[in-house]
């Protein structure tokens, strides 16, 4: 018997030892309303996806805890000629699998991120080429002078050339076409965390990378990222201590969590603007009862929609005050905000009805609206409120609210007539709205997220000029002009800027980025 007992005792001892070891390891349990749709950093340009994946993959340039530009995989950069930016790459960096990071990986990631299926074209697609100077130096060459290159690439993640080739992942995961590959479930970055186990839409576990090149300011060893879609369940998990950090706090529960003495609520203005877009390209809408013509091509219809929306009541009732109505496509915190244009067209049901009648729709018409239900704060509720607003002017909305896993592939392939989108100007500059959202869709990521294909040649021209203009005053003047044109055209229907709402246990210190990014390396559990 003793012979049999010994291994048992040994096992028990091992288990005890392991428990003791893991007790000293710091685990952070993060709850979110949705999941990163894939681990591929080039597959979806969405804030949550970027926020999660950038703990694993790194970019050349990043933003520090104060949201200022900071070196990461590049140690320094300078403009050597008007159209040439030189980046010195960090030496001694290894990917998680041990392969060293070199200029070849940067070139590879550039090709991957601007190629077919990538959602990051609007960042790197504007470059002419990237040249390798030596193993740790590259030149980014642009067509015209381009002063904001470092700002532009803060979300362009670097992947390992060797790993992608070995795993047949040289092309990005493309949900629009149903393309998945190894990069969807596994990851090999240079970042402070590595993916340990992934269960899509349920839970992903990350652990601190053993061979990280830098020092990590925080003390988190392990991150368990859980998806809890239901607001009430997520709040319950937070209050019961099952989660350490959660995002977002449902606006209806902010006060309740604030009153809890074990928790704190972190709030701030978010850079994201929520807006509605309309298909203005097709000659006939895909989902409408108007046949043979596209009502959204008529500026009067777009204006009628705009004026039918009661944004103040949406703010007070749906958002419980946690939103700032916007008249522009980006909030005041973004560089190049023309304050004199920040006035919305008035909410006016009669004016809206009149405009619709003038446009030839005195009895309104019917159109389908696509909407996510787990992406933005109260997104489906906002869409329902908009549908009710529009019903009052005779427009019948067939609302289709769905989870973002099916929503984004649908609208990103432009399979929609009327949709909701949120956009964060990640460079904190108006150009990052003008180029992907307001420009006519074209090559190199131009208009990649202009899903209704709003088009005005003057705006396109100004967008190019803004990219290369270095004189701040002149540049702001051009931005203002473009925004004025877009406003007069009612190219999109801006709604509001939502507020950031995170909750965390009181013993947790973290940095809340205005683009809703959560970098786990900055998190300390005391």
């Amino acid at each position: 018997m003793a012979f049999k007992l010994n291994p048992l005792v040994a096992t028990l001892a091992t288990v005890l030892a392991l428990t003791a070891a893991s007790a000293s390891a710091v685990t952070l349990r993060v709850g979110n309303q949705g999941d990163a749709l894939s681990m591929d950093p080039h597959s979806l340009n969405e804030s949550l996806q970027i926020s999660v994946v950038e703990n694993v993959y790194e970019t050349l340039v990043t933003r520090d805890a104060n949201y200022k530009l900071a070196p990461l995989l590049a140690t320094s950069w300078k403009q050597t000629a008007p159209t040439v930016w030189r980046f010195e790459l960090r030496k001694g960096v290894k990917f998680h699998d041990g392969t060293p990071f070199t200029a070849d990986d940067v070139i590879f990631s550039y090709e991957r991120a601007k190629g077919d299926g990538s959602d990051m074209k609007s960042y790197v697609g504007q470059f002419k080429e990237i040249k390798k100077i030596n193993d740790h130096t590259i030149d980014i060459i642009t067509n015209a002078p381009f002063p904001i290159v470092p700002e532009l690439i803060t979300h362009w993640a670097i992947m390992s050339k060797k790993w992608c080739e070995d795993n047949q992942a040289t092309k990005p995961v493309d949900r629009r076409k149903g393309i998945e590959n190894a990069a969807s479930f596994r990851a090999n970055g240079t970042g402070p965390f590595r993916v340990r186990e992934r269960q899509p839409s349920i839970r992903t576990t990350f652990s601190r990378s053993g061979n990280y090149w830098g020092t990590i300011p925080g003390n988190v060893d392990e991150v368990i990222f859980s998806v809890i879609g239901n607001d009430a369940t997520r709040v319950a998990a937070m209050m019961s201590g099952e989660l350490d950090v959660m995002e977002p706090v449902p606006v209806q529960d902010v006060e309740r969590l604030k009153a809890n003495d074990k928790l704190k609520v972190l709030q701030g203005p978010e850079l994201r603007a929520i807006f509605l877009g309309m298909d203005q390209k097709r000659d006939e809408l895909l989902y409408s009862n108007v046949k043979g013509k596209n009502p959204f091509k008529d500026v009067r219809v777009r204006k009628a929609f705009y004026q039918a929306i009661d944004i103040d009541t949406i703010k007070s009732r749906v958002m419980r005050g946690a939103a700032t109505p916007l008249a522009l496509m980006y909030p005041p915190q973004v560089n190049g905000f023309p304050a004199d244009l920040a006035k919305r067209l008035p909410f006016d049901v009669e004016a809206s009805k009149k405009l619709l009648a003038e446009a030839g729709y005195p009895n309104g018409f019917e159109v389908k609206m696509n909407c996510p239900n787990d992406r933005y704060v109260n997104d489906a509720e906002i869409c329902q409120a908009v549908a009710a607003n529009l019903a009052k002017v005779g427009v019948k909305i067939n609302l289709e609210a769905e989870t973002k896993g099916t929503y984004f592939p649908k609208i990103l392939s432009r399979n929609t007539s009327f949709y909701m989108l949120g956009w964060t100007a990640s460079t904190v500059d108006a150009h990052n709205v003008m180029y992907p959202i307001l420009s006519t869709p074209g090559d190199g990521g131009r208009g990649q997220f202009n899903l209704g294909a709003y088009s005005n040649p003057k705006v396109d021209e100004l967008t190019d000029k803004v990219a290369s203009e270095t004189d701040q005053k002149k540049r702001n003047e051009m931005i203002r002009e473009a925004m004025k044109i877009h406003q007069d055209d009612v190219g999109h229907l801006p709604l509001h800027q939502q507020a950031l709402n995170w909750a965390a246990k009181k013993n947790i210190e973290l940095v809340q980025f205005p683009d809703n990014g959560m970098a786990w390396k900055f998190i300390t559990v005391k």
Partner: protein
Amino acid sequence: MNVLKRWLQSDVGYSFRQSPMAMVAAAIAFICLFCSVFAGWVSPTNPFDLATLELSDARLPPAWMEGGSTKFLLGTDDQGRDILSALIYGSRISLIVGLASVFLSVVVGVGLGLLAGFKGGWLDALLMRLCDVMLSFPAILVALLIAGVGRALFPNAHESLAFGVLIISISLTGWVQYARTVRGTTLVERNKEYVQAARVTGVAPLRIMFKHVLPNVMGPVMVLATIQVATAIITEATLSFLGVGAPPTSPSLGTLIRVGNDYLFSGEWWITIFPGLMLVVIALSVNLLGDWLRDALNPRLR
């Protein structure tokens, strides 16, 4: 009136008069049915007419609480919808979906069960193995699958089609029980003398199946169907709760419960509690009726 009188004099009618529970359940079920059928007249407002909703009325408490308004007896939901009206219209959807899907599964299940029991042989084996396969999956999972496939097949589906998909997905999981029951009873009936007599006189098999055997196997089916209505209503609510059922702009009870669920913690309990209670009341009354019917139709229990 005569029909009712005659029915009350019958065996089943007698058992009904003797069972207060059945009478209460029937009364409640009748009220629900009446309200649903005449929702347009009974309900204070039409909650599906988006043009009448005022967002500024959103999340008002029930009339007897502070801040409540007599205009909205049971309060309003997050879009300013009157909860009482939403309940009436919501139970209409629940009842329509429940009854329609049960009807559909009875038609499919009884048809296939009769065929399997009467024909026997490889057809019987094939159909029953199919039933085994269907039974090995939880009904809700199969319904989810069918609803998902339905949506993928008709991406441009109008709202009314969403209900069609809902009904089909529930009935495609519900037919198995009828098929099993009917097959078993048919196997017994098939060898009885009246069937043999019909055969000898040269009646066509199809006619024997429907004219002679079918009426004799319908008893258990009626009982099963009544109970299944309650199950179907709950399945519909579950699917809608999971977000694949009725659209948010014309909410069924399940959709209302799901929406209200988000507001439980913030103290706005009425958005979810009332639809929840309504669901319990409907399901319970239909279930009790089914229970009573089973006892009444079973001669051994009398």
